[in-house]
């Protein structure tokens, strides 16, 4: 069992290394001269060469990647140029292990950038999860218990329509009409709990959280409806009803418990995929979370930040998979034997 876990972990680490290397290679394959971009248009070839050295882009890709991996294990100092560090120690930034790099564009370590952005994405994700779980499960149950009625068809139809529109469109619609033209809600702007208190923090998360939740809501409505209907057709439900239990008790105490179990698994998987949705939602609402950080880094060819976010997101997915694999191995001995 432990050997299996160790093997899966080792494979996960190799995958992460490959992921970071491929990102490096893709980045350098782009037709953009990084040093020229950073140095500015008046720079001569000599000055561009100096900038290239300072940024470490003069070294082969594998060497730059090696420095990156070393930083994760042992930490690094920036600027990379040792001459500058020695001559002007006030300009040095320490990046402790696991160091994901240093963004020249933002003058911060990638760890700091991710540290600043992650709480915003997590807050947005939490609000969205609560919304889609409460909304999706409630509407799914309602649809199930009114199966075949206009309510059922209305719920399923409307959530599918909402799902069919891209979140970019819904986000802009919400801002343009709901917030600006009709003034139904205040224009959302991220405010931290420290700056605005819990109420303001939450109030400003409602609209973007709702847009992100809509991405998942339709799926949860349909799945809940299907699971509840399936559960209600089981023999033990018939038995419960035959025993004279009230309909509400049968539904909530016996039917739902079985129906919701697969939804918990589904929620876990969807949480891992939230970054994709957050990129769009954060970009539309200008919430400076991991999604917006990724977009800005991509637009500005900020390699260290792109690598850092890719490795972090990849690590989440890989770790989640390892946990699932190991959990399966515990549950089903055939897996670890295979």
């Amino acid at each position: 069992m432990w050997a299996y876990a160790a093997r899966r972990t080792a494979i996960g680490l190799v995958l992460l290394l490959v992921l970071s290397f491929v990102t490096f290679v893709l980045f350098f394959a782009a037709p953009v001269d990084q040093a020229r971009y950073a140095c500015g248009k008046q720079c001569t070839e000599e000055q561009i060469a100096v900038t290239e050295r300072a940024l470490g882009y003069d070294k082969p890709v594998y060497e730059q990647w090696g420095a990156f991996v070393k930083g994760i294990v042992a930490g690094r100092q920036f600027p990379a140029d040792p001459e500058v560090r020695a001559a002007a120690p006030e300009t040095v930034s320490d990046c402790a292990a696991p160091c994901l790099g240093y963004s020249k564009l933002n003058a911060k370590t990638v760890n700091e950038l991710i540290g600043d952005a992650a709480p915003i994405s997590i807050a947005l994700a939490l609000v969205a999860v609560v919304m889609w779980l409460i909304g999706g499960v409630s509407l799914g149950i309602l649809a199930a218990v009114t199966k075949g009625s206009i309510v059922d068809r209305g719920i399923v139809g409307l959530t599918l329509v909402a799902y069919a529109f891209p979140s970019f469109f819904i986000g802009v619609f919400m801002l343009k009409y709901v917030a600006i033209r009709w003034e139904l809600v205040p224009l959302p702007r991220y405010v931290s709990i420290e700056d605005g208190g819990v109420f303001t923090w939450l109030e400003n998360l409602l609209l973007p959280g709702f847009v992100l939740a809509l991405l998942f809501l339709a799926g949860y409505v349909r799945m809940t409806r299907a699971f509840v209907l399936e559960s209600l057709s089981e023999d033990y439900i018939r038995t419960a009803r035959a025993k004279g239990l009230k309909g509400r008790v049968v539904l909530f105490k016996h039917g739902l418990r079985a129906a919701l179990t697969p939804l918990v698994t589904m929620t876990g998987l969807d949480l891992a995929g939230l970054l994709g949705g957050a990129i769009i939602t954060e970009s539309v609402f200008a919430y400076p979370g991991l999604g917006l950080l990724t977009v800005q880094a991509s637009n500005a060819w900020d390699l260290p930040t792109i690598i850092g976010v890719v490795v972090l997101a990849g690590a989440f997915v890989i770790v989640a998979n390892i946990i699932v694999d190991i959990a399966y191995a515990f549950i089903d001995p055939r897996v670890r034997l295979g």
Partner: protein
Amino acid sequence: MGMKLRKALAVASASVLGLSLAACGGGDSDGSGGGSGDVEGTKGGTLYYLQHFPFEASDPQRIYYGVQLANWRRVFYRGLLAFPMSEDAEVGTTPVPDLATDTGTSSEGGKVWKFTLKDGVKWEDGSDITCEDVQYGTSRVFANDVIIGGPNYTLSYIDVKDYPGPYKATPEQQAAFEDAVSCDGKTITFRFNKPWADFPQAIAGMMMTDPYKKSFDEGEKSQWKVLSNGPYKIEGGKWDKNKGATLVRNDQYDPATDDPEQLRLALPDKIEWQIDPSDTAGELFNDRLIKDAGNDQYAITTARVAPPQFPQITGAVEDRYESVLSPYNSYLVPNHKKITDVNVRKALAVSLNLNGYVKALGGERVGEPGETIVNPGVSGAQDNPAFSEDNDNNGDPEAAKALLAEAGVKTPYPIKLAYQKSPTTDKAMAIVKESWDAAGFKVTLEGLSDTYYDVIAQPDKDVDVMWAGWGADWPSMMTVLPPLFDSRPNVSSTTCGNDYGCYQNDEFEALIDKAANSSDIEEQVGFLQEADKVLGEQYAYIPLEVSKFNWLRGSKVTGFATTPASSAYPEIGLIGVQN
């Protein structure tokens, strides 16, 4: 250099550069302003500045966005010189003293410039601004591995060799720099290796020689720190890239050391500078200004009104609308490695339906046909005879066919036309294709995306004609023609730099050398006008449109104007709010 229209468009109208001048306010017949924008402002209140893109830095030596240079010159960073807030093109592009006592004295044929600092000018921490601060700020530009991204024209002028900037200079290197940029009490002397006639214009617009306090400097970690010497300071001292900041009055700023009427009225007590870097921010800001509710009544924005919003500019909204010529021109560049016959290039120019192209872009609110690559706001701009004479801008396919016959080329002549792709440019380039196809060409359109300028800079590109855009860094043709067509700093084995057509012409380069060595501005302008004529005779470029900026403001904003110094963006030095 100037800035490419790319950023101006891609960053949604954030002018990346150019302190250039645009013709000023009220360009549209019906867009002459009105409402409270014409009301003279009074001190007090809070102005809301809605910005739809993030800045790249708040360190003065790293700032290159034209709108940021212009605005921050008014609020935080006073320079030795500055451009006045006049709407008059000539007055607005003539530098006046700011931190310096006068506009400087030059000697040795424009190779030496001296400025003396005023008494009583201070940083926000109460310390005096010294000559050494100016010297140190100038030196930071040389550290182009630490202070990246800003304009660095001074590198090729200041008479010092192999100076790596203050962070890793040896004592000998530092001493050599301090000989080239020396202090004597409050007087700073710049020694150049060649004449720099338009140096005052360069430093009025750019912050390459702005003071910087050495003890405040943390190299690249200073990227978002602001130590103000202007009428405002930032609450907390740090600019937030994605949020902006709240600007409050700087109690160490003494208007007596300034010329508020010319340089900065500083009317609002507070400025809430809000950044929204989302892709949709520009459109939404203008939706809010059309709605004009709550604090948006006291707001201005960096985001131009988008063509789909034009139908909403009616009635009371129109009173808060302004359309002005921008500092940006766009143009087409033939690839001189592929189209070597001047008659073929001329055939492209004479057959171009420029009126149709501008109409496809959005019409007269979006731009007007250009007759040269030089923006009307640049000193000495004049129509280029190659494009202005006998040209109704509708295209003449028959004349083009005759030219192709004269060139003896096989028709249809294949042309691959590259441009930065968008739904609007697709439509406009379709007009170009239509007019050229009718003239004996066979055009293939090649719409490219984000890495556009990197692709067209490649020397071996498989493209015949390219779209490009440009705005001057300061109102001199020296920041237009040499950066775009001088092959010597641009063309190498790996790139054609900003000379996208890989153009090389000895006569042109001799003229810009004469211009560069002029100690007199008028003489310099004369050489550059001649150089533009040479470009026209060679059809080194084909002008497209001078773009326009369309602005809305809140109903309680006062003194709204755009000026040459503000790069045709709202002139924050003049703007106030009703109390």
